[in-house]
């Protein structure tokens, strides 16, 4: 089965980017950074966002130099097939591991908040068919569906933030955390970042017309700004006890539990989390498919979907089965994986630019 991955517009790419950059940071991330860095925690998303925007800038430069080439072609042309395959294997592992982390976080959330004591099977039954369908339908369908839900997502995010502002009851006491503690926390919770790298994999499929770069940059900037804002509001709303409220956006809405006649508003944040979970997992699967395709070019793309499902099920059923293992995995293993988007990839791209510059001169 050949999956049809037609081009997407800059707007659709921007929306996918927004979902990726915002989504996996609204649940446990704010609580965890507060636990490690107290009130200075709000600086962590700002610092991470700067790095993320740097990655987007790198993509912008690369896309301008190679507007129609695939990333496979670019890597192969400059560094050979072996490097390209190593890169794509690394990408496969990267996106699979991110999907596993996301699943674990949301599984814990849903089991605690809605489906008491439900088994993994229930969630897998609800999640896997949908994300497989989205990924198999192709990048354009994924982009269009995300575009359709975007107004809903954005409205809920803005609503949650506005409601969250009513819960702020303290001013922060800054500069209480040591630099070492701050940077350790920063590194430990760096795993949710780096998603911009997906753009490199679909570099030839993003149709960016003249003047449309601002859409991509504003989507990314907007998402990261909202991450910082949510973290900030959350930390101020639950000053000193943030670590006791693990699910940030949900807890923000829980603060205003009952509006007369409307009831608890945390249902709204719950829907937001569900939407994010579906889309983010689908995008990770899609990126895994692209990575798989980069490694096994001659094999049908549907094997990429099968491989993802098999590996995903093995990891969540046998390797990371409880909360402790999930925390260990998310804080001590996964941050190292970000070396790929934030160190290895930029180095290779910069080397590529330098070589081209040299070639042009000669």
């Amino acid at each position, binding site marked *: 089965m050949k999956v049809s991955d037609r081009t997407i517009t800059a707007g659709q790419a921007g929306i996918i980017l927004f979902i990726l950059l915002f989504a996996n940071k609204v649940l446990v991330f704010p609580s965890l950074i507060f636990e490690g860095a107290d009130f200075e925690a709000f600086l962590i998303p700002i610092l991470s966002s700067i790095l993320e925007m740097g990655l987007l800038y790198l993509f912008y430069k690369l896309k301008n130099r190679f507007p129609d080439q695939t990333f496979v072609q670019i890597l192969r042309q400059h560094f050979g097939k072996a490097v390209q395959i190593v890169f794509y294997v690394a990408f496969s592992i990267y996106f699979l591991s991110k999907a596993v982390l996301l699943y674990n976080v949301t599984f814990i959330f849903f089991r605690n908040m809605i489906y008491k004591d439900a088994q993994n099977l229930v969630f897998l039954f609800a999640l896997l068919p949908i994300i497989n*369908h989205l990924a198999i339908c192709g990048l354009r369908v994924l982009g*269009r*569906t995300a575009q359709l839900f975007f107004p809903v997502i954005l409205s809920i995010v803005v609503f949650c933030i506005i409601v969250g502002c009513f819960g702020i009851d303290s001013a922060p006491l800054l500069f209480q955390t040591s630099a070492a503690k701050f940077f350790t926390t920063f590194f430990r919770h760096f795993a949710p970042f780096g998603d911009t790298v997906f753009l490199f994999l679909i570099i030839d499929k993003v149709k960016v017309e003249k003047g449309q770069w601002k859409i991509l940059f504003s989507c990314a900037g907007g998402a990261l700004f909202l991450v910082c804002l949510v973290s900030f509001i959350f930390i101020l709303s639950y000053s000193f006890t943030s670590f006791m409220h693990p699910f940030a956006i949900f807890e923000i809405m829980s603060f205003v539990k009952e509006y007369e006649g*409307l009831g608890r508003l945390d249902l709204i944040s719950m829907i937001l989390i569900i939407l994010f979970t579906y889309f983010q997992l689908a995008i990770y699967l899609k990126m895994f498919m692209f990575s798989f395709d980069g490694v096994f070019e001659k094999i049908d793309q549907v094997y990429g979907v099968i491989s993802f499902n098999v590996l995903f099920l093995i990891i969540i059923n046998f390797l990371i089965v409880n909360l402790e293992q999930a925390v260990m995995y998310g804080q001590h293993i996964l941050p190292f994986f970000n070396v790929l988007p934030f160190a290895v990839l930029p180095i290779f791209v910069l080397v590529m630019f330098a070589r081209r510059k040299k070639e042009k001169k000669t």
Partner: protein
Amino acid sequence: MDVLKEIEKIKKQLHNSVDVASRVIQKNGVFVGFVYLKSMTDNLIFSQALFEPISNFEGELSFEVLSEIVKANDVEECESADFIKKILGGAVLIFLSNSEDVLSVDILHFNTRAPQEPPTSPVIMGPREGFTEDYKTNMTLLRRRFHSEELVFEELVVGKSTQTKIVISYLDGIVDKKIVKEVKKKIESIDIDGIVDSYYLIDLISNRPNSILKQIGQSEKPDIISAKMLEGRVAIIVDNSPIVLTVPFVFLEDLQNSNDYYTNYTYSTLLRFIRVAAILMSVLGQGIYIALQLFHYNILPMKYLITIADSTQQVPFTPFIEILFISLLFQILYEVSLRLPSYLGLATSVVGALILGDTGVKAGLLSPPTVIVVAIAKIAIYTVPEQSSQITLLQYVFILIGASLGLLGIVGASIYFLAYANTIENFGAPYLAPFSPFIFSDNKDGVLKVPLSSMENRPKSFKNEKRKRINESE
């Protein structure tokens, strides 16, 4: 030519069907034979236009003379291979014993109903006439709205047994020729015994015939079809069907209603928002109600929770069985009321609403909130009646998902169906355009509606040759 022999031959070919009529007269030594179908021709026209001029003619009859004296417009020479086709099409064949040529005179006539207001799309303001079963009348209804050379009708014949006439209509210079070509290609490739109604064509020309989503536009109203043709769509008129089809079709078309264009635009916008809300309530309402009852009751406001708990605790069934039962009951009543005469339809409504519903609640078999939820969901369907079959199917899917997976499943299924709808492209038009892909200019007549003067361009959701429709010369 041996006239009698030829007539016998034709009768034999038509299996001596009772409606095959023939008559032979002798005029100045020349035998004149008429063969026609009684069921397709008018006796009065036959005698006034053909029989009288021939019998009153005093000179010597020849083929050339015959062509001139008959009082009809559609007169032509007919090849022997086309004899049967012409007779079946309502023509009278005239044979002369002194000529080898045969004359075909079209005097097709049968009773048709006059254009009336269609029961499927009544309007408060605006034109009330609707299409009929006669395709020529339908062509007239369209022609009356376009007094320009741009309107084109192309005729095709489909169906081995029915030989149904299908007319493709479009506005030349506005429509994208590729769409016309594709429509013609699809219709020409149909190999079937018969086309009884335009609904037969829907399955045969849809890109995804197995899909539950509607992919071809339908209307009984000439003003709606004209408006769609002005946007660059192709209309397909099928003989013997009052429903005219249009392609390309996008979901938005069913959200629009002809009333929207004959009333204030702000009010139309409000109505469209209500329709969207009604669709959502209708599709998701019952599923969400079950999900809240089964999985997420703790998020309901305390007052509601107490009321619902109070009214459901006596009910012996689970919410899923309860809601499924009422839904099925409604569907049965709906089917019955469709098929019963109108005076009995009222009786079934009374039985359904009062006896079954009210008594069911009083007996403790059904809970009032469930009855209300189902009633709202079922009534809301008919804000967009064109989508009623799809919405009804989706309702059952969401009831099942709500009962098994709760909100997680409902959101997931919504994503699934919308992604599925996004995979459909009919004649180059994305199904969910202009919402996804988002096309700003087309959203002027989307859920929001701006005044006609602000809708300067034709839709971009599908291709058309002329983009501007207002101030074209600028």
